[in-house]
């Protein structure tokens, strides 16, 4: 190997500008923050819905998200998809796997409720909380036995295309890929659909009523247990979708990742105002932005500290969260 030679080094001038301008950095990090935050938001919705209905912080929720990633991978394998999907597969296989994964994790979440939480519905408030932590450990270990301790390589099922350069033809230094679009193109419709369901349908009305006052809802003829089942199902399905999106986007899964993601999402739910669905979505995005900007402008090792400091500040000055309403009997 030859290395030395000043002349050779001088000739190696870069063929393009490498440094990003400050505004390009800001835009790029904001894009990173949106995609990161969208996944948090999707998980946070499940936390906030369950809390709204039965007042339980479902610590197993993050692990349902993790299972969503593992299960979706199994569906892709089952359908024989190990490489990038093409053309028609994108509009058939991908939605099918989304549907199957969401159904499966929805059912899992309902099962968790039936087995672990329902018998404790009228118990002391800490009992279901501790049970939730126990369920979380069980799911983690289940995944550990199932897939082993090594990080799981999630195949490149969703093709990554550099949109600006390959589709638009602009030689920009910014990077927006089809994967970024995938995240936004799935999370936003899901959130809108959820909002529509909760505010415009009879079942949604039942959910809101149950969240507001369980006893009165029961007296009004609302089947509270069925509403709870529905809530767990939707929450689980959203977590499953988030798991699938995470797999497609980052191409990696770890059996312990539910805990970490759950903690961030829970923070997002509290930041937005626990019990409030727009709040969970907003909280997720805010944490996404903050952590991406912190990685850039402060240092990655301080990001967690920063996120939780802001959470503490919000809780001190606005205990109900950003969009939450003050509900004294719930807090």
């Amino acid at each position, binding site marked *: 190997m030859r290395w030395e030679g000043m002349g050779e080094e001088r000739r190696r001038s870069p063929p393009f500008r490498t440094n990003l301008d400050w505004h390009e950095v800001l835009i790029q990090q904001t894009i990173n923050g949106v995609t990161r935050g969208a996944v948090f938001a999707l998980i946070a919705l499940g936390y906030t819905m369950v809390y709204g209905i039965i007042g339980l912080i479902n610590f197993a929720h993050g692990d349902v998200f993790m299972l969503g990633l593992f299960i979706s991978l199994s569906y892709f394998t089952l359908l024989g998809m190990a490489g990038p999907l093409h053309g028609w597969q994108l509009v058939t296989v991908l939605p099918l796997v989304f549907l199957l994964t969401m159904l499966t994790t929805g059912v899992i979440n309902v099962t968790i409720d039936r087995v672990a939480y329902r018998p404790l519905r009228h118990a002391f408030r800490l009992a279901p909380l501790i049970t939730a932590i126990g369920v979380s450990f069980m799911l983690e270990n289940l995944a550990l036995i199932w897939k082993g301790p090594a990080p799981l390589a999630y195949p490149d099922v969703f093709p990554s295309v550099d949109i600006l350069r390959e589709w638009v033809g602009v030689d920009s230094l910014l990077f927006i890929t089809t994967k970024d679009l995938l995240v936004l193109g799935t999370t936003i419709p899901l959130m809108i659909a959820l909002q529509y369901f909760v505010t415009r349908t009879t079942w949604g009305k039942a959910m809101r009523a149950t969240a507001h006052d369980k006893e009165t809802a029961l007296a009004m003829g609302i089947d509270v247990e069925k509403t709870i089942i529905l809530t767990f199902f939707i929450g689980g399905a959203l977590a499953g979708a988030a798991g699938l999106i995470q797999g497609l986007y980052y191409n990696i899964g770890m059996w312990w990742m539910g805990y970490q993601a759950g903690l961030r999402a829970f923070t997002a739910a509290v930041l937005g105002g626990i019990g409030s669905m727009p709040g969970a979505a907003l909280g997720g995005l805010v944490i996404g932005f903050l952590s991406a900007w912190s990685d*850039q402008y402060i240092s990655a090792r301080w990001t967690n500290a920063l996120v939780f400091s802001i959470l503490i500040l919000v809780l001190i000055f606005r205990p109900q969260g950003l969009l939450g309403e003050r509900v004294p009997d719930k807090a």
Partner: protein
Amino acid sequence: MRRWGWVGILWGAVLAVVATIPVVATIPMDATAQQCPKGKLRIYTSWPMQGAMIPEGTGMKNGVDLAVSEAGGAVAGYCLEIINLDDASPQTGKWDGAVEAENANKAVGDPLAILYIGTYNSGAAKVSIPITNRAHMAQITPANTYPGLTKKQGAAPGEPEIYRPLGFVNYFRPIPADDIQGAVGAKWAKRLGVKKVFILNDQELYGKGIADVFEATAKKIGLAVVANEGIDWKQPDQKPVLTKVRASGADLVYLGGVIETGAQVIIRQMKEVGLVAPRVRFMGPDGLLEEELLKGATCEVAMATEMRVTFAGLPFEKMKGVGAKTYEEYKKRFGKEPTSYALYAAEGGRVAMDAIKRAAPALDRAKDITEKREALRKAIATTKNFDGINGKWSFDANGDVDYDTMSGFKVVKADTPIGCKFQFEAILE
């Protein structure tokens, strides 16, 4: 017998004589009295010899056997006996601190034991070094590479003094420690034409230690270092950090990390933010030299970033002189390829043989076993210009080798199931 007659008896006699020949031939190996007038000394070895560790454990045992048999089983009038101990727990099959402590105590309690060769796991060495230190007994490892066992560089607070209760160095390693990789990596980066490097580390002992040394060396040799940033490796989304790398205009990403802390995630996401050659290349230490990493990072990205990794020492096939000879001898004698650390075990054994020879007068004068051990410890510590498998080297004041020969590997396209592999590229010093 009757049917065989005289011819049969004659044949029987011949066979009997032939059968005794090997027995007679082994007698000189087994230390006859005139070969060791000064008596017997014992060498203890300790590393896992169970389950998945059987091949490596046997390889290291072979290495020590090779060194002792080269000396004819006796040095300077002392016969040598090797006692192989297993420091794995039968319940878990992995090294166990309690078992290792028991082994070390067994060795220091033996009035004939003069040397302890081990361990395989750096964690086990943390347990046994203080025990052998208190007994003035030298300990040589064929495999520990955790820097903190011998030096401050890349160590936790209090290391390495906590392993030396009597204050002197009794632990020696004829194998370069992990942190050297950081230094060698920086020099390699410079030779590859790198101008500005962005260092990432996983904030763990191994990764941060190597990253810190890389940073120090890079600054010394005139490479611009943008930052040495600790990352939150539990976060699967590293794009913001990588965007920061991109914004800095660095042309190399050096990652102090291992596969268990998600190195593959970072490498894979480099492409997602446009960090590919020729704009940016990637380099890391031998914790990344795993096929599993290529699977996770994908061959496409590993090749697009011109991924390179450093590796302590040389691959056996590239060794010259003593190393090449030892490699051939090992294969001839044991009929198989040496395992990763087998030849370093042989090197450790040879260092001991050489030191016993030099310490002979002091050994003869010694009144008890502690004085004998002390004499050998001092002799090993003063090993100078030793003709080893990676070239000539000496022990420094910490008990480390002073050579920094490493090899550099690059990911290239290959006809393997995953589509690429690590290929030897250069010898680094």
